[in-house]
């Protein structure tokens, strides 16, 4: 027998996570419910014109996604704590960062599904029409989602052994994500309004993604094996 490689373990862990989610629907249901709540409540709170919508939608969209993602990220690790299954992974020769990678990709898929489902609702509730090109919005969406789930997965793993992990995660995650949050909100707003070029913010998001993905991959073994 040979110790398994990172990608083989990532693939099987991702397949296992998708199967678990398909059967339990824990993460996707709570995310959808939460995001829907934010959209509806904000639509009652504001009654924006089309022009105002373009200016505030960037913030609204990412606030909804951010809070919903936190719910999903907590769920991702919670299922590894039930029956202490994480210990079975820790005693195996499987590389620690393989688990991290699979969790990030899994959460990325869940949050992307949420965004796809929520976009028509946002357009409908806020009467949104983008002036800038939609393909730029797609790039921002992918980069911003990756930024959220990479950090979120890492810090959710750090907080799983704390007593109030649901509170701990946003407390740690939000401050460290401020550059990414600024970039995703401004890039989205500038594409929607078409006033300025969003590329500075898109580049910032890309750099943020590369830096945090690398750092998290390197440090994850310490987090996984911390007592």
């Amino acid at each position, binding site marked *: *027998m040979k110790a398994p490689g990172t990608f083989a373990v990532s693939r*099987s862990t991702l397949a*296992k996570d998708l199967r678990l989610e398909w059967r339990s629907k824990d993460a996707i249901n709570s995310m959808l419910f939460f995001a829907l709540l934010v959209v509806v409540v904000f639509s009652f709170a504001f009654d924006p014109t089309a022009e105002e919508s373009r200016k505030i939608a960037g913030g609204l969209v990412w606030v909804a996604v951010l809070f919903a993602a936190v719910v999903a990220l907590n769920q991702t690790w919670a299922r590894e704590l039930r*029956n*202490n*299954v994480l210990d*079975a992974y820790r*005693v*195996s*020769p499987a590389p620690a960062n393989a688990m991290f990678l699979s969790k990030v990709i899994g959460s990325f898929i869940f949050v992307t599904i949420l965004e796809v489902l929520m976009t028509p609702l946002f357009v409908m509730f806020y009467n949104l029409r983008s002036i800038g090109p939609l393909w730029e919005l797609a790039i921002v969406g992918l980069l911003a989602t990756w930024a959220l789930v990479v950090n979120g997965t890492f810090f959710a793993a750090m907080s799983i052994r704390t007593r109030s992990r649901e509170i701990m995660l946003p407390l740690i995650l939000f401050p460290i994500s401020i550059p990414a949050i600024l970039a995703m909100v401004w890039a989205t707003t500038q594409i929607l309004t078409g006033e300025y070029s969003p590329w500075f913010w898109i580049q910032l998001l890309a750099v943020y993604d590369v830096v945090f993905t690398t750092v998290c991959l390197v440090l994850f073994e310490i987090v996984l094996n911390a007592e």
Partner: protein
Amino acid sequence: MSFLYTPDSVAAGTTPAVSLFEITKHFGRFAALRGVNADFAPGKLYVILGENGAGKSTLLRIIAGLMEPTRGEVRVLGTKKLREVAMRVGYMAHAPLLYDELDAMENLRYFAGLYGIKDDAMCATALLRVGLDPSLKRRVGQYSQGMRQRASLARAILHDPELLLLDEPFSNVDVTSAKDMASLLGAMRDQGKTIFVVTHQAPVMQPVCDECIVIAGGRLTTREKGIPRHLLSPYAAEARR
């Protein structure tokens, strides 16, 4: 008094399966283990007994590499780097370490992948060895406690480990199943595996036990061949006191 280092318990020229040197573990102010020294020869079945909170599970977790000792050194299969020998070690904990939403075969298939095993037949064999049907489609969450324990044992022996660490494998298991599991462990020992079993059910392990270790207050207090009579029926011994 801590148990003395016993180099004579391991034959000359043989690398101990597990060596513990001055193992101490603190949880805050509480000392779960206090300067434990011992060598354990390969190919034997060790039964670890002791009261709740004596430090048995902590010792097993340290040997498994799940916990760092506060002080001291542990060598497993000849190395201090436990990650290097993870492939050769099997661990079964108090909790089943299985996903409730998957059936036993799906669980084992996933864990087999963590050991680089792609052969479904090995998963099926492990389940059959513990008396479970590999074709059973029921999810582990719907299993009885006894079935979960057996599935958990199947997960631990799946990759045919040289060193097997079992923490209370018989809890909530009926007597017949427990005896079957003990015979399986005996057979594995006969094949040269080293096995540590933490249990409160000493009589179940008596027929296959090579050495009995008693932990009390974080120290190894007894180490004997076979299980001493007074430990086989602790309730009777307690009543006589």
